[in-house]
């Protein structure tokens, strides 16, 4: 059974519509004079707050050494399994003591949920969710960031750990007898 609600009849002022138009236009004119709240995206970009979780990237240390050692912890922890790593062995003499580096490192940005778990789990502080937030592409393949792209996005972070460099120096100094 249908329920019929009786509507209150409009009074005289309401029937005129004028007060409503005036109220609406006053809002319009107030906004015209008030400071702008929108932004001319993409020419203008919003400031990114500290701790923002953008696209995950790989970073190098200040000396240009790739920090990731392909421990695959991020691959393990990533909830949507967006990360695929093929580990490899470091061949170049200079960083031979680090032994391991990724041969391939893919992050599927169609899968990534920007949760930041990879950054949190990384024992080498090699993967960071930085400020980049807009990813687009024409195909699924384009949306997979490979190792090269990840380093390009990541750049260099100014941390001063130099864990492996210090180890190498200790090795060279040698305190074995």
């Amino acid at each position: 059974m249908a329920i019929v609600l009786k509507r209150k009849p409009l009074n005289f002022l309401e029937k005129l519509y004028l007060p409503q138009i005036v109220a609406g236009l006053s809002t319009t004119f107030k906004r015209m004079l008030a400071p702008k709240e929108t932004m001319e995206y993409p020419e203008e970009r919003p400031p990114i707050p500290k701790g923002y979780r953008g696209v995950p990237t790989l970073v190098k240390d200040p000396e240009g050494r790739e920090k990731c050692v392909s421990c695959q912890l991020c691959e393990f922890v990533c909830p949507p399994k967006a990360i695929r790593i093929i580990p490899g062995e470091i061949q170049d003499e200079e960083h031979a003591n680090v032994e391991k580096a990724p041969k391939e490192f893919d992050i599927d940005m169609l899968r990534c949920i920007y949760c930041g778990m990879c950054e949190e789990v990384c024992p080498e502080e090699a993967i960071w969710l930085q400020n980049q937030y807009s990813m687009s592409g024409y195909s699924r393949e384009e949306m997979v960031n490979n190792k090269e792209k990840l380093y390009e996005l990541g750049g260099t972070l100014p941390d001063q750990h130099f864990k492996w460099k210090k180890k190498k120096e200790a090795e060279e100094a040698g305190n074995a007898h």
Partner: protein
Amino acid sequence: MSEEKKDDGLISVFIDGQEVRTKPGTNIIEVAASVGKEIPHYCYHPKLSVSGNCRMCLIELGMPGRDRATGEPILNEDGSPKIMFFPGPAIGCGTNAAPNMHVKTDSDMVKECREGVTEFLLANHPLDCPICDQAGECRLQEFSTSHGAGYSRFVEQKNVKPKRTRLGPRVMLDDERCILCSRCIRFCQEVADDDVLGFTDRGSYSTLTCFPGKQLENNYSLNTVDICPVGALTSTDFRFKMRVWFLKHVKSIDFETSVGCNTDVWAREGKIYRITPRRNDEVNDTWMPDSGRELYKLVDGENRLPHCKAGEANVSASDALAKAVELLKGEGVAIVGSGRCSVEEQYALKAIAETTKAVGVYLVGRYGDDDGILVSRDRNANVRGALMTGLINSLPEESLSDLGAKIDSGEVKVVLSVKEDLVAAGLSKDQIAKVKLVSFDTQRYASTDLAGVVIAGLTPFERSGTVINQQFRIQKFHKAVPGPAGAVDDLVALATVQANLSEESFPSTVASVWKQLGESGPFEGLSFKSIPDEGVLLDGSAFGALPFAEGKSLHFEPKQEAVAAE
């Protein structure tokens, strides 16, 4: 309580107050494990001598007190015997069960001991876990989590020791990670009988090394990698390939020889990464030969057959099987089975032999040198399966010269060969060209190219079944990875052939074959499900007179007559 309750030869030991009945002399670590109490340990290994050097297994030990003067038991106020605990801790691995022994595995003193030992072990330990292959299955990692402080008080410079050392063709050593437990040394001395490892220097400078001019290259070297509780010894083959926590392991059997070592096959997403031994105290203890660990390379081997063939053309499995049936309907069929097939496949082959009234059934023998440990002379994993299913009744010879003669005389016109290279087995290409060859293969052999029909089959890692080892122990192996898309399961293929030839149904799964096998005959009462992981010893006395090739090996003594016949 101190009275022996039953005369079953067992004694009472009390682990944290809980009574356990055990054989006198059992190691306390094992006694505790039997009631689910873990005594953490590094250097103790159930299959090696006790060296007691890591001190991780410290426990508190006590015995019911006796008055020194009178010899009377000292009692508590409530009349129970008073347990006198030793003032200091004792190592669990060096303690054997004695009547009424009392052990505390989680008292405050024991916990403090473990924490102390852990802190000392970690003092000089490198921060290598991210690049260490052992991570995820490392005892030091595990016990550092449970007994470690979570931070380091050690501010001095850590010791520097050799890293990335090649100990032998298959083993890498990282001395900084070594906790000096000496398991690897004892293994080489006691099991592999190739004493090449030792410690040099003293104290925190102690370093594991190979004796000068020697290498760790015996065929058991990779077992040291398995038993090393940390990542000091790692496998060159598995090095940096995959993290262990991604791998799933499936129980399998080493097909290399008739010893039938129990193995675990570790795979991720259909790719096998390594093979490790699985403990079976009646067969291989906790060891396996290095050579058996390489077999997984067959799966992606260069010569792997990805699909079935009829002549030169690639065909679907069903077309190839139809063609095979057509050929096998002819006269003069001979069958070359394989000692590497499972019992189920041999049973199906036997049925095919009967249906086609085969003029000859052969197996290709493979013999090599044994090492008295886990490699036997017979390089076929399942010759005894062929005997027990009745496929053959004498031991296989290495050469198929008898078949060759029958081909030459025209008696044999069709050959069904399963997993064997007929050229390698002594037939000439001309002889093979004279017959119609149906070949079940996983790899491309010389004879594969000559076959009229090639059915692409599966490697042992891609199918399930059973094999019978030198002790007549029937053991199961399970599928670890799927096979290539164009290949067909050997048992399914053989069953299809048999069903089409005989026009009666034939079981095509392992479980359904076992329904028939278990009905009567040597396998009576068994089913695939009921065979336990450690296998079942079958009665092989019917074959006692055969001169089996195997000599003595770990847990195996050849029968006297067989030895005399050699």
